[in-house]
């Protein structure tokens, strides 16, 4: 018998009993532990369990469509799929990445970046790795349900700008809600929501955006949807009808295709915008998915400012178009006799400085009508000198220059109508009388936007009615301002503007249209000082043309500017205006014919006033 096997010792019962008691104590302690979780805190943990297994998936509401004035779709939304990557399970994630990269054509770096960006988000929140899935991508995900359960499809609504760049600056674009908007929205928005960021998309965002629905689903621990609990359907956004006429817009776009500048076509009676172009522009479809950072940088830093809506944001010297204001001021103020005339030798001296007429050889003896038709600078220098800057400013800003028109777009710029008060307030010195001479031909400190010029021309031709330009059809509270002009002033000025297009020798005689009383005024402005122009080695100009028809109480007014051109306004911008006005009348004629239902076509020229004969007096 080995020594250990000698059974001479009693079993130490007391110590064994102690072990029993200890066991009881441990079990009681464990029960207390379970009691704390399962009874005391069970509500809290039941909440956590629910939050674990249920997930709310937004059902994105489509944004409302944008229609043109005839109901043609300009902008709509379409359902599309985003591919999500579930990253709950890092182990299988790492193994699957190469296959995903190859199957979906995503570079390793892009995928890694998407994952890195979301690193600090909760792990159960999937990452969007492909925002706009193609048919092939969707097929890939569907066919790899079994071996790549980490991929998930999410239906989203994407904006579609049917005509790409057309009307882009006015329509604007959509994008992910910004941190600021999120904060201001008071919980209305969630991160990642798509909102209007610019243009009409932003202005009418409240109408356009729908209410997202919500689907509550049960998910398992790797985030796969097991079943649906309930659905709250989304409410689509309301469509908006615009006053824009697709046909007019299309011709304006075509005419401006390779140019830099802007066009505004407006119903002169109501302020309805018929067309608006700003060039160069961008394709808002690029923003509809997710604009790559470098592309966004490029758009923002492009010196040709494609994101700027020049029609309402470019503040430019109006040039000779400003002579409409000068002429109206001259006649309406009665400070200068209507018969006033000057001899234009091609230059003149004011306040010790030499000022030139655009025609070096001069216009000879010129009175108001001739001065408008020929756009004589010398005549208007004199008028400006006699009126003084404050009188000019009174008429200029009375006719809407140097202040916002109130168009229903965000970020309209005001331009500037200088005055004595303005120069004292801003520069703290007296107005230099010599500056008045420059302002008289739309140079110097005065700057306007194209939409202001369109409204001004319409106001003069309609006796001082300033309409509020707008894009929304049936815009309820369009403001009408009145800046009464004497009938005499309206008559004299519009006769001159009719002559510009319809009299031989007029600066825009080449634009005349059969049976249409197109009136207008060209302008050619130097955007920068001569010094700056020399430094940059450019002699290019801004060419304006503002036209309307008919002569009195016009229906349509169009302002166009072609920037950075070698041509004068009449040649550069005039044809754009003419084509739009012609299209407007062609459509109207076709419409009337349709209405008449086979009867003889209406004669657009039949109700023409006697202007034609007036024009005849000035060969």
């Amino acid at each position, binding site marked *: 018998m080995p020594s250990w096997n000698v059974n001479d010792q009693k079993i130490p019962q007391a110590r064994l009993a102690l*072990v029993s008691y200890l066991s009881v104590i441990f079990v009681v302690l464990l029960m207390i*532990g379970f009691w704390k979780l399962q009874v005391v805190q069970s509500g809290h943990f039941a909440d956590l369990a629910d939050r674990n297994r249920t997930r709310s998936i937004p059902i994105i509401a489509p944004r409302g469509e944008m229609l043109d004035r005839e109901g043609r779709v300009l902008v709509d939304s379409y359902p599309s799929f985003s591919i999500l990557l579930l990253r709950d399970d890092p182990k299988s994630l790492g193994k699957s990445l190469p296959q995903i990269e190859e199957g979906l054509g995503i570079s390793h770096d892009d995928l890694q970046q998407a994952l890195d960006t979301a690193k600090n988000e909760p792990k159960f929140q999937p990452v969007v790795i492909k925002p706009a899935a193609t048919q092939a991508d969707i097929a890939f995900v569907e066919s790899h349900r079994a071996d790549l359960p980490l991929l998930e499809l999410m239906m989203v609504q994407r904006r579609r700008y049917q005509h790409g760049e057309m009307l882009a600056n006015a329509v604007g674009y959509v994008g992910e809600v910004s941190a600021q908007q999120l904060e201001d929205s008071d919980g209305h928005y969630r991160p990642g929501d798509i909102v209007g960021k610019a243009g009409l998309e932003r202005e009418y965002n409240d109408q356009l955006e729908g209410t997202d629905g919500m689907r509550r689903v049960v998910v398992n621990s790797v985030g796969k949807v097991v079943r649906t609990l309930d659905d709250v359907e989304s409410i689509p956004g309301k469509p908006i009808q615009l006053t824009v006429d697709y046909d007019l817009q299309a011709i304006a776009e075509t005419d401006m295709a390779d140019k830099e500048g802007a066009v505004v076509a407006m119903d002169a009676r109501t302020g309805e915008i018929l067309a608006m172009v700003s060039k160069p522009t961008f394709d808002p479809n690029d923003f509809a998915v997710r604009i790559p950072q470098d592309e966004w940088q490029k758009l923002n830093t492009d010196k040709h400012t494609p994101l700027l809506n020049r029609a309402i944001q470019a503040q430019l010297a109006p040039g000779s178009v400003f002579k409409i204001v000068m002429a109206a001021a001259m006649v309406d103020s009665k400070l200068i006799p209507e018969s006033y005339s000057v001899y234009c030798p091609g230059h003149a001296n004011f306040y010790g400085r030499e000022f030139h007429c655009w025609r070096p050889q001069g216009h000879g003896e010129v009175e108001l009508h001739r001065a408008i038709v020929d756009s004589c600078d010398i005549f208007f220098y004199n008028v400006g000198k006699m009126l003084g800057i404050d009188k000019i400013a009174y008429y200029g800003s009375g006719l809407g220059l140097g202040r916002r028109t109130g168009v229903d777009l965000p970020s309209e710029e005001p331009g500037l109508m200088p005055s004595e008060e303005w120069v004292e307030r801003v520069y703290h010195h007296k107005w230099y009388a010599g500056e008045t001479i420059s302002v008289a031909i739309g140079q110097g400190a005065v700057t306007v936007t194209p939409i202001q010029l369109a409204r001004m021309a319409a106001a003069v031709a309609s006796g001082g009615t300033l309409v509020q330009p707008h894009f929304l059809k049936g815009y309820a509270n369009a403001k009408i301002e009145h800046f009464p002009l004497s009938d005499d002033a309206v008559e004299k000025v519009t006769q001159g503007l009719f002559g510009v297009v319809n009299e031989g020798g007029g600066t825009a005689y080449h634009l005349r249209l059969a049976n249409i009383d197109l009136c207008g005024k060209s302008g050619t402005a130097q955007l920068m000082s001569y010094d700056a122009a020399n430094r940059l080695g450019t002699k290019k100009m801004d060419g304006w043309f503002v036209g309307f028809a008919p002569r009195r109480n016009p229906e349509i007014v169009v302002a166009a500017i072609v920037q950075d051109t070698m041509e004068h306004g009449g040649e550069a911008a005039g044809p754009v205006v003419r084509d739009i006005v012609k299209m407007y009348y062609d459509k109207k004629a076709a419409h009337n014919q349709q209405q008449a239902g086979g009867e003889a076509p209406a004669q657009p020229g039949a109700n023409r006033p006697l202007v034609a004969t007036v024009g005849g007096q000035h060969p």
Partner: protein
Amino acid sequence: MKDRPRVQDFDWTLLAIVAAICGLGVMEIYSSTHASAMAGMQWKQLTWLGIGVVGMFLISRIDYHTLLDQAPILYICGVAGLLVVMVIGSTHLGAKRWISMGGIFNLQVSELMKLIIIIVLARFFSEVRTDRLTLADLVKVGALTIVPAALILKQPDLGTAMVLVPVAIVGAFIAGIEWKHLAIGVVLVALLIPVAWNMRHHLKPYQQQRIETFLHPEEDQRGAGYQILQSEIAVGSGGFWGKGFGKGSQNQLGFVPVRYSDFILAALAEEQGFIGVCVVLLLYLGLILRLVDNAQKAKDRAGMYVVMGVTAILGFHVLVNASMVIGYMPVTGIPLPLMSYGGSSTAFVFLALGLVMNVRMRRFVN
């Protein structure tokens, strides 16, 4: 006095408790896996249980005195086995724990080592002829325990390495550890904790992480901290009455980690509630008390030490596993005996129970 041990002398009360625990385990394994790709796991577990029962009968046939006679050889074989594992063991889930046995099954030597340490320490303690353990005895016990524990820790398998320690502690306690030694031990451990804390950089990364996440569970959403959190959510959301069989969302949707094995108590707690947990804990308490009862009735100190070694290991398993499930202890990979799915651990428990039966059967035999 009988001259032969008989199967009728098995502790049938103890086996009834074991059967109840195993039944609950199989039921919960079924509930946890029937709706998943692992469906059918309960049959595998029943197979392991069957093998375990056979093993239990076999080991009860060999007189434990014979086993204790071979203790030195068993110990050497065990340590050698662990060394072999280090060299040729197959790696699974990042740990070298298994020796491939001709493709039929993989032998987890560390599970065998648990049985061997029970036998070796029972032999050692029964050689102490007094009711006083000397310091030299304690050092020897410590050395016997630390060698295999260190090898297992190296695999790395912190959980199994730790399991060897309570066999030594409980044995030493019963063998008559001196209060001053106990006090010194407690003080030493208290002093070692900060030292160990400073040595933590020598731990395996996964061990560091487990300690980190135990201390700061919220910082690691998807690692061990996530596991503990999901386990707590499962337990807590089960409430008093439970969500019902097969209806625990944490369990059914896979939020509870290894819900059929290490975290099976969390799965059960979610579906059967506090009531279910109490039943399980009381069954385990019954098991432990019944084991201690067997120890008290053992024929000799050697048998008592064998039974108490088994008791120490099983009690430690239950305590650590249940504490982990409710977030009181870090995740160490210690399964809940008889309930958690697993071949090696089930086999070990039944072999250990076989030792207990062995002792019980022979209490009246000369």
